[in-house]
């Protein structure tokens, strides 16, 4: 296999290198790619969409259809992880710590569930939560990260970032919660059902905004036709449409990232894990 792989790799590499022979030089401002379409985007985008971040303009408007499916891919990944890993059966073995004494109980029968509270604390088999410093710092950090994430989503029109990046960052903040405490804390705060619904709703916001344009008389995704529905400057309607779409993306991505993480780390049991 190694040898075969090596040969395939060499052949493919040679093919690719052969193709570079006629490439325009790196960074050549006159290469076809830099002239044909890109000039149109650069010169017209601000005027047409009122969004200075060209990437966002192209992403959410000119090629918004791509992005919609990209979000669908994310949704699909979330569904996939749920379908593949989620295991509704409870684990047989459990560990409890008797808080006053520090004695650890190992319960092998799944039917005996101790009531956790002041006396007993359910603890992970494999994972010992981090110490106080990390916990505290994370607790302080997480709100800031989340606010930053919201900023990234909201300000995507003007600066780098957008729904996807914001969503990932928001998702990461929740994952950070799980890592610094343990999984149960996260699962308790963010219900699985909520995550599942939000993943779909995020995409639904996107598709919905895009689809409303059709009864309004435009083509699919044509935000400019939304003007009658939204109060405010119709001049900026495309930028608003993009914002709405980005929010949808953000919601979906956040939910899916957490779904994937929880399912992978707990092998789908949502009980214990990193």
């Amino acid at each position, binding site marked *: 296999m190694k040898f075969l792989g090596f040969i395939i790799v060499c052949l493919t590499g040679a093919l690719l290198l052969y193709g570079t022979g006629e490439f325009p030089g*790196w*960074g050549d401002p006159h290469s076809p790619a830099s002239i044909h379409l890109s000039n149109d985007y650069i010169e017209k985008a601000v005027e047409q969409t009122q969004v200075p*971040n060209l*990437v*966002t303009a192209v992403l959410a408007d000119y090629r918004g259809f791509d992005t919609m499916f990209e979000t669908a891919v994310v949704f699909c990944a979330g569904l996939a992880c749920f379908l593949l890993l989620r295991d509704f059966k409870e684990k047989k073995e459990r560990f409890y710590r008797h808080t006053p004494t520090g004695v650890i109980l190992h319960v092998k029968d799944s039917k005996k569930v101790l009531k956790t509270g002041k006396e007993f604390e359910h603890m992970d088999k*494999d*994972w010992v939560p981090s110490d106080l410093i990390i916990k505290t710092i994370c607790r302080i950090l997480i709100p800031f990260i989340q606010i930053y994430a919201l900023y990234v989503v909201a300000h995507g029109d003007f600066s*780098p*970032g*957008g729904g*996807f*990046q914001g969503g*990932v*960052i928001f*998702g*990461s903040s929740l*994952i950070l919660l799980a*890592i610094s405490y343990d999984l149960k804390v996260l699962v308790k705060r963010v219900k699985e059902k909520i995550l599942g619904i939000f993943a779909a709703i995020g995409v639904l916001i996107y598709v919905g905004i895009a689809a409303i344009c059709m009864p309004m008389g435009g083509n699919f995704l044509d935000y400019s036709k939304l003007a009658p529905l939204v109060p405010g400057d119709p001049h900026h309607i495309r930028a608003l449409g993009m914002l709405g779409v980005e929010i949808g993306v953000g919601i979906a991505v956040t939910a899916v*990232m957490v779904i*994937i*993480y929880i399912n*992978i*780390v707990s*092998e789908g049991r949502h009980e214990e*894990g*990193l």
Partner: protein
Amino acid sequence: MHWLIDLIVLTFVIFCAIAAISVKDLLGTAILFGAYSFMMCLLWAVMGAVDVAFTEASVGAGVSTVFFVAAVFRTSRRTKD
């Protein structure tokens, strides 16, 4: 000047890539992979692709690595190659 930074970072990227696939500790692979992603993100920033770099920083160096560590946590850390 640009191309010099570019070359140096690119060399780092290739180094990280080779290291990531040849280390025998999967957690090490995860970390090297994170480094690789981060280098890659730098490279893109150098080339002016700020949005892409931002995404890669949050995804490649962030969430992907976390998924990776999570998967290693649930599987084995050692490997033969």
